């Protein structure tokens, strides 16, 4: 409940940031994104870039899985398609980087549409498993289509260049990837203010009654797959540029699970959830690393427990959130906000 926010028009009521405070927050957030490079070191910038790429990808998966209810375990493979498109163009057709990125998104969208076809026949868990199959088939293509992918040897990508500046380091890359991330997130947020986004949610909640309400299931399911793949393509393309080299093992099933975990932990079906989840899941290993550093006086060979502990924590986060906080970090965030909103008048 908010005091003194009577809307003057329905347009205002439908706005993304309804109140002045929200606008202020958004501006502050943008400002801190701008200031961040000036106060952090390269390593933190590296993480920031990685987080941004993951936010894009997770947001895409959230549209498909969180909002439309189509579980996909092939998201990483779609990113792979984007990455290989960029890599191939970079090595074979000296096209500029933004064209490559758009092409990556385009190709991935096309592949995503095909991979989404099973969703017209099957749903729920069956679909999830069909996407595992799709991801294995893509993996097979990455490995065996040697003339394009160089097979298991992997393929190198030159860093992108904008107006003569080579973005070969996080401190420059940051200025490219963060704005893209912000735009992609805003686009996704807009989507769910309109009929298209609502139709997605309707399909998630009850697909047959959605269809009787005039929502064409095949069209919207495929649309959702297409949008998610578009995001995956952009993220994959950026990933290829950022890493500078990719191979078929860069996009394993585990990575798809990672993104699924990110949206679970963040909160399925909220834009904020995708963002928070991607940030949280990308940074958790870092926190663990510090934790293990702290614990080093007490255990011998602390380095050697890090990776199993990471695996365990990864699983425990999925289980824990689903058990105790099924709406994820986004819900925790809302609760915090509510608390401070009414503070000191608690309800």
């Amino acid at each position, binding site marked *: 409940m908010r005091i003194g926010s009577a809307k003057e028009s329905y347009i205002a009521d439908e706005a993304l940031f309804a109140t002045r405070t929200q606008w202020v927050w958004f501006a502050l957030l943008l400002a801190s994104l701008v200031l961040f490079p000036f106060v952090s070191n390269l390593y933190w910038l590296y993480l920031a870039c990685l987080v941004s790429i993951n936010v894009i990808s997770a947001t895409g998966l959230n549209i498909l899985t969180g909002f439309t209810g189509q579980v996909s375990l092939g998201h990483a493979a779609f990113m792979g398609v984007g990455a290989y498109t960029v890599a191939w163009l970079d090595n074979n057709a000296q096209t500029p980087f933004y064209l490559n990125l758009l092409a990556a998104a385009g190709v991935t969208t096309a592949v995503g549409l095909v991979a989404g076809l099973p969703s017209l026949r099957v749903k729920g868990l069956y679909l999830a498993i069909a996407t595992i199959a799709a991801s294995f088939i893509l993996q097979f293509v990455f490995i065996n289509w040697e003339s394009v992918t160089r097979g298991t040897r992997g393929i190198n990508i030159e860093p992108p260049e904008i107006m003569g500046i080579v973005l070969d380091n996080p401190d420059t890359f940051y200025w490219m990837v963060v704005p893209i991330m912000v735009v992609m997130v805003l686009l996704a947020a807009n989507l769910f203010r309109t009929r*298209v*986004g609502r139709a997605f949610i309707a399909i998630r*909640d009850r697909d047959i*009654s959605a269809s009787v309400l*005039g929502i064409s299931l095949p069209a919207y399911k495929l649309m959702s797959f297409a949008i998610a793949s578009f995001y995956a393509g952009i993220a994959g393309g950026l990933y290829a540029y950022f890493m500078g080299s990719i191979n078929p093992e860069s996009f394993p099933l585990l990575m798809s699970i990672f993104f699924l975990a990110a949206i679970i932990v963040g909160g399925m079906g909220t834009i904020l959830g995708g963002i928070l989840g991607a940030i949280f899941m990308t940074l958790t290993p870092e926190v663990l690393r510090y934790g293990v550093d702290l614990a080093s006086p007490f255990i011998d060979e602390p380095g050697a427990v890090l990776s199993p502990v990471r695996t365990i924590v990864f699983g425990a986060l999925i289980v824990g959130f689903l058990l105790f906080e099924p709406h994820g970090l986004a819900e925790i965030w809302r609760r915090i906000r509510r608390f401070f909103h009414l503070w000191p008048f608690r309800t």
Partner: protein
Amino acid sequence: MSVLELEGISLGFGGVQALSGVDLAVEEGTITAVIGPNGAGKTSLFNVISGFYRPQQGRVLLEGRNLTRLRPPRRASLGLGRTFQNIALFRGMTVLDNVKLGAHVRMRTGVFSAMWYLGAARREEARVREEIEREVFDFLEIDHIRRHPVAALPYGLQKRVELARALAMRPKILMLDEPVAGMNREEKEDMARFILDVKEEWGITVLMVEHDMGMVMDISDRVHVLNFGQVIASGEPAVVQKNPGVIQAYLGSGDVNSLRERLMGESA
């Protein structure tokens, strides 16, 4: 004039013949009730009309247009609105979003304009929002709950939201599957009033399935009786009510007092 006509609809599931050769016409501007024993095929008939089931035979005509080959979404956009026997709201959404979804078929925004949310998309959202507020929420007296998630609402209100959603479609014909099942008398009275107003103020033709005979007899203009997938009687409520076949198959004694005596007899 009939808005909706069914011609020779037959529908079977494996061994079960749910509908066989049903002919039925719904006159414009009426409340038409379909009654019949459980399992007679009423819900199946609705499902055939909205396109969820494909009949083996027969045609569905809406304002003379053959719908038989169309899929459910297309039929909805041509003006078939409906509510469901078991509430089928989108439980993850608020009342407002549920109702907005009803207006889905009347909106045009595509993905691209949706994502940029500029100009046309923005205007369309605002327009629909305003219409819903003005016409639907006000009418059904649910404006106070527009921001509530539907899953938490009491049953009666959920039914009302479902009606609101169907109205937001601005359908030519509104199909209600047991709109007052599970309600007490008081709530039934509210719902009856809404249904009458839908007909009278909105000018929408209503086709409804209902087992509450009191209500069916009071508010409907025409009644069709279905039994074992066949129409066994049609006509004015008062006439149908006296049809011995209908009484035997469906209505029973219909008299509380005689029932009471019967029950007393049973339990004596």
